[in-house]
């Protein structure tokens, strides 16, 4: 069906979105590259000029940089692991015929409708707060000291909050995939005496691989840029214990108002994101015949 004219028409129809995205990507990118070589602090506008790679080297020399890189990976990896594993478990569970399925599903996807800053401040204050939180009350009820989530386990706390936000997304996609499975295959396996575990291992899991790939890909894109939840809860601390790369950039842009450094950080982050993307494509791209 690809006649010459239809191919031309096809190009024409892809053109607007490609052109828009190209502008959307290139204009800020060029501006950011420009600023990344400039000395530009919002509050000292009289000191400007070209600085070469100073803004870039500042990041690489900063003791927080490698920590932030590690934390970024921990955040992405941790949230992915939690949401995929729990997502599969929950999808398997709510795919069963149960009473009140409609209400049940809305409950499971409820976190998805909560704005990230709201989710973070509600979980921090109403649940994880060492004096007023619900978790503290539970600890005290069982006679132990409240856990100091934000002080002793800042990175885990952030991962927990973000996982809660993204669990519904993973569950939904995995559930849709489950529902598309043919039941004959499973029934046949059951008749052959395959255990539940081996049915899961050899039939269900391979079928879900594509869905898992999609979850990993889309979530990675969103998770790489997360800083709002950190800003609301731990502010990257204590010390730099929960500082991620986006948060490190955020601090340079918003607190220090150093536009040059923030721009350099942005460029570094773009490069890293693309490296991650390439690995992702190599690693799991084969499951996607997009």
């Amino acid at each position, binding site marked *: 069906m690809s006649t010459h004219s239809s191919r031309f028409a096809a190009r024409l129809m892809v053109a607007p979105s490609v052109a828009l995205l190209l502008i959307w990507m290139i204009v800020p990118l060029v501006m950011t590259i420009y600023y990344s070589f400039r000395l530009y*602090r*919002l*509050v*000292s*506008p*009289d*000191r400007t000029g070209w600085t070469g790679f*100073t803004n870039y080297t*500042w990041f690489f020399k900063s*003791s927080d940089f490698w920590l932030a890189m590690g934390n970024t990976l921990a955040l992405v990896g941790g949230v992915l692991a939690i949401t995929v594993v729990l997502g599969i478990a929950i999808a398997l569970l709510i795919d069963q015929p149960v009473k009140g399925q409609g209400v049940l599903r809305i409950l499971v996807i409820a976190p998805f409708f909560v704005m990230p800053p709201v989710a973070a401040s509600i979980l921090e204050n109403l649940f994880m*707060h*060492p*004096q*007023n939180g619900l978790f503290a009350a539970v600890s005290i009820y069982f006679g132990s*000291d*409240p856990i*100091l*989530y*934000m*002080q*002793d386990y800042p990175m885990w706390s952030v991962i927990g909050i973000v996982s809660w936000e993204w669990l519904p997304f993973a569950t939904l996609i995995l559930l849709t995939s489950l529902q598309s499975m043919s039941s004959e295959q499973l029934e046949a396996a059951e008749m052959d005496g395959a255990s539940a575990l081996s049915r899961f291992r050899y039939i269900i899991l391979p079928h879900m691989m594509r869905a898992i790939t999609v979850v990993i890909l889309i979530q990675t894109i969103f998770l790489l840029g997360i800083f709002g939840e950190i*800003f609301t809860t*731990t*502010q*990257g*601390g*204590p*010390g*730099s*214990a929960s500082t991620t790369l986006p948060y490190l950039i955020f*601090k*340079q842009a*918003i*607190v*220090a*108002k*150093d536009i040059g450094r923030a721009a350099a950080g942005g460029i570094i982050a773009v490069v890293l994101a693309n490296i991650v993307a390439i690995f992702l494509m190599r690693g799991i791209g084969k499951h996607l015949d997009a």
Partner: protein
Amino acid sequence: MKMTYRALLGASVAACLSGAALAETTITVATVNNGDMVRMQGLMDDFYAKHPDIKVEWVTLEENILRQNVTTDIATGGGQYDVITIGTYEVPIWAKQNWLESLNDLPADYDIDDLLPAIRGGLTVDGKLYASPFYGESSFLNYRKDLAEKAGITIPDAPTWDDIKAAAAAMTDKDAGIYGICLRGKAGWGENMAFLTTMANSYGARWFDENWQPQFDQPEWKAVMTDYVELLTKYGPPGASNNGYNENLTLSLQGKCAMRMDATVSAGALTDPAQSEFADKVGFALAPDAGLGKRANWLWAWSLAVPASSDAKEAAKTFINWATNKDYIALVASKEGWRNAPPGTRTSLYANPEYAALPFAKMTIDSINAADPTNPATKPVPYVGVQFVAIPEFAGLATSVGEVFSAALAGQKTVDEALAEAQTLAVDEMTAAGYIK
């Protein structure tokens, strides 16, 4: 009833007519979401009655987001706002960049000479007032008198740090959820570093020497950090490294802090029975000293200013005059009582016998008067500012240092490691910024 209704109708008709006759000016006011500012938004009827030709659009934001949006706007000449809420740290820096409109031409009824000298000084650059204080604050100690009594101690009106340590030890009862002292631990130049800088002032420490050389490698800072970490670790609430102003105020309102060193402005809430069941048990004292002649109290004023990029400067000044005038204070007092009047800006407020009768009035004014931005430390310094250093680089630098210190409080670093790291950070930053040649 009928009369009121008719009067109201008349007024609104008049408002419509005048609105049609005079071109209505709309001003955008960016403000922080603290109690006093929210209260003002509830009293706007008074403003509209007096100035029907001006319409006010509010942008109310949480402090950090407000600061981010306002700074970006003013530094890029955006002109989105006609009135902005800024603090004592920003005013001198921004005024020097010619980003702010001078307020020297406010009408006579503004009564500029009534402003508290310490507050006015902080908002004045080269003899010109660049922002009008909405409320001013220092910091002091609030404590629960009933707990002090129970522990058999008295807290002097002008305590020393040794008094504080002893009192904290005596009043702490962690099993009952009572913590001897609550201090700011959350990282940030306006959070833990505001407190620690004042504590440093009282300990004889300073940020920089006369040649802008950072001083974290000096023994005075080590004494500050050692005592700070020890006080909070032994007697403070668990998780103190994540507690800022809000968290500690909440704990105090719940009666969980036996003592708390923080802003004088929270006294209104602390003594308000509607907000705290311990309202009648709160005592106040000056911030402590270490016998070196400086107390650990700061000076801050949330102030209203007009950006140079505003296109409605006259209307903006009219609004500022209304919002920070003596009449406004009287208006709040008449509607919501003297306790809720915006504190710390005007001499006349403290001369008012009704206000002076409030339990925190005298301590507040004494604290404010005791702060000296031009001479904050016991040793000479090249900068202005009590709990901050009024240079553009400070916010970023102090936030980084604040993170290191909050890590020390959380037990992730020793005091020595934290101080060494702070020193390196400060030297690097000051060298990059060209202060250290």
